[in-house]
């Protein structure tokens, strides 16, 4: 169901304070975004840009200084929403004295899942994340990558509707990374919604439908990955067998020369380029939304606002 909003942030602001209530960090400033059902949404940004803070606010682990966080139409602090969500934290925070099987059994109990069903699902998930050989071993003996896998399995124990993944590929080897990405795409295929964050551009570019790029707690760019990577004021034309003489009058020649038009459109940059540009721009003009060097782009016009309040859905 397109258009069905499952996660929403409205002017979400978070200031970390110390014990005395003194301001320590302005971690997130007036973030607004929506995630629709069935999409893979990526939060992208350098370290310390507020990605984890955003996810924790959406999960109710942190309380916003102002603004609202809604998940499945409920306030983020409402426990009832937890029935339908899964969360893989930044690092796998698990009970070290339990084995993989016991871990999944324990989390399954928190959902009131019946014993038989718990058994079935944990066997299935352990298989899926590739830990069958270690299912009886204690989590404290696991390597980081293995802990990551069991962390993912625990996030999926309730077959959630919305999955929040904080740096899902961190600590995984290249094969593990590939498997994780496949798994995420698989979740989408099953109709799940995924909200993930990462500082790894390749991850995001490969799997996400839409992204929000954060820098120093501010939303810098927001939209479909394909749109964001388009360079609007360039047109790329790839032509095979074009005669030398026709090069000067290329447009006319294409029409008249009988050459094959192979492709025509805006060339795409890599996400890495975009990202680096945003960071550079943002450091030069803090507090301003990224202004791409393109014309007619719908999402770049509100750059003068102090905060990137209104997302423009592409």
């Amino acid at each position, binding site marked *: 169901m397109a258009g069905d909003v499952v996660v929403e942030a409205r002017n979400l602001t978070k200031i970390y*304070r110390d014990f005395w*209530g003194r*301001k320590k960090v302005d971690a997130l400033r007036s973030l607004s975004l929506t995630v629709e059902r069935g999409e893979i949404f990526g939060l992208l940004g350098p370290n310390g840009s507020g990605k984890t803070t955003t996810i*924790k606010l959406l*999960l*109710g*682990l*942190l*309380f916003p200084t102002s603004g609202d966080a809604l998940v499945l139409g409920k306030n983020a602090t409402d*426990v*009832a929403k*937890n*029935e339908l*969500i899964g*969360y893989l*934290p930044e*690092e796998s*925070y*698990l*009970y070290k*004295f*339990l084995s993989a099987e*016991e871990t999944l059994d*324990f*989390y399954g*109990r*928190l*959902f*009131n899942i019946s014993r038989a069903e718990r058994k079935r699902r944990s066997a299935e998930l352990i298989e899926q994340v590739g830990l069958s050989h270690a299912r009886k071993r204690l989590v404290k003996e696991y390597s980081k990558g293995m802990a990551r896998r069991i*962390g993912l399995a*625990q996030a999926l124990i*309730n077959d959630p509707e919305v999955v929040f993944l904080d740096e899902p590929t961190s600590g995984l080897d290249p094969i593990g990374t590939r498997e994780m990405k496949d798994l995420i795409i698989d979740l989408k295929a099953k109709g799940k919604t995924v909200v993930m964050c990462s500082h790894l551009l390749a991850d995001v570019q490969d799997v996400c439908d839409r992204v929000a790029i954060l820098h120093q707690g501010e939303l810098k760019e927001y939209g479909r990955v394909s749109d964001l990577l388009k360079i609007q004021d360039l047109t790329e034309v790839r032509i095979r067998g074009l005669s030398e003489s026709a090069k000067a009058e290329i447009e006319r020649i294409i029409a008249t020369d009988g050459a094959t038009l192979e492709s025509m459109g805006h060339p795409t940059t890599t996400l890495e380029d975009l990202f680096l540009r945003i960071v550079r721009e943002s450091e030069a003009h803090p507090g301003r939304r990224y202004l791409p060097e393109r014309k007619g782009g719908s999402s770049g016009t509100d750059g003068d606002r102090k905060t990137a309040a209104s997302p423009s859905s592409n």
Partner: protein
Amino acid sequence: MIIEQEYPDLTQWPILTATAFYWVQTLLILIFLGLGIAIFREVLLRFLDTWTSGGIGSALIDLPISILSSLLNTLRNLAVSVIEVLALPLGIRRIWAIARLSIQEAVRRRVLYVLLLFLVPFLFAGWYLPTAEEAQLRVLVSFTNTVMGWLLLPMVLFVAAMSIPKDLETKTIQTIVTKPVRRLEFIVGRVIGFMFVFTFVIVIMGGVSLAFIYSQVTEKVLKDQWTARVPIYSAPPENGAYSFVFFKQGVPSAVGTNVGREWTYRSHIEGDTSDEARWFFHFDPKKFENADRVKVGVTFDIFKTTKGKPTLDTDDTSGVWASLDFIDRNNPENRIDEAFRVNNNRVTMIDIPASVLKSGDILVRARCLTRNQYLGMAKHDIYLQANEQPFEWNFAKGMVSLWLKVLFLTSVAVAASTVLNGFVTVIFTVGVYCMGIFHNFLVQVGSGQTLGGGPIESAIRLVSQMNQTVELDPGFFRTVAKTFDPYLIKIVGAVSAVVPDLSTIDTAEYVAGGFDIPTWLTLRNIILVVGYVIPVLIAGYLLFRNRETAA
């Protein structure tokens, strides 16, 4: 054994009402205190923020809005909390999941090794044991209780106070609270899990202790004292207010003769005069229906005004003698008169025919027979022995008190640890526990009755080593003391209302003295502690709910 304090029967409503009121009062105090602080903090922070960003003017304009929204938010929060508290039973499986986790953690982290540590004192205890038969049980019971307490309490503190802070520190809490488990369920699950572990430890420790006591006492003690007597104490007759009265020259009086003893628990009657003390007994006549003879326990205190003859077992005229008249109040013809030599401050068992007790409405008159000597007596100095229970069973009942203390500590520690770090939680819990144990003192200070003035004044006296009854010299310190002490006293008073009196739940004295712990006393203790634990856990829940679980 001496009972100074009168416990009403559980069937009497006032105590239940009082206890129930006590929970509610505690609950309300804690909740309003916590909420007040939270709202104040929130409003203050917002005020300061607006001030720095928009100047004092806009901060002042914003103030009422901020107060209102804070209040509304709090009310909404409270409403949700009430629902979650009421819905607690629905989460039984999730609670059990958490409890199970706590048990697994304790077992796998080898917390139970503390049991081995527990055995150590017993290896050496035999060296120090008393040989006097009267003291054996008392010393042994208090020894095992002390050892159990000293091992259990640190273990409880460590396990219960560190658990939630550790969950927060290792962030495992983040995978828990993003599951459908409610925070109250989490807290309750933790407490239940720990209590399973501690109960197991108490059962093992109690068993070892009992076996140890059994192995250490002599044959004679086993024969005479290895029991739990069920006493019937005096009770007011149907139309009277007193169950125990003195008669001096035929005139009734609440107290007897003052012989100048500091401890006024007992009052005295003079020997070889018409002075007497009377007890009324009122009980179910069926109690002694099948008995032939009934034992009566008598403990009097001797106050000598002349040297007299020393008590010699071979000489019947030595020592101080007393007589007891048992009279059936429904049929004064049915009576029996017993004379016996008083064991100073120790129990004397008298054997009387059960027939004199058959109406269940008895008057007992006591007189001192020896001239120039006084006998001190009090309400609980005579009891009819209705029954005897096994010592072992009584010992187990005694363990309930320890268990309740552990429950108290666990709950306070778990509740406090939702907002304090582990170390501070330990300090806090120990503090609350000590205040509970020395509750009487707290109440005295809180009502300004202590000698030497309030806390500051007392501190000054302590430092300057000044006599407690002399007025302080005028000057700066005196002004400080006189200004702030009244407030401190008020605070102590408030604290004493929030902390329960733990000293009253101790039952070791019963076990050691060979008296059955009355069921109503056990029940009352359970109500007192459980009644306290419930609001404490709810307060812990409210604190937990309103904190961020990711730092």
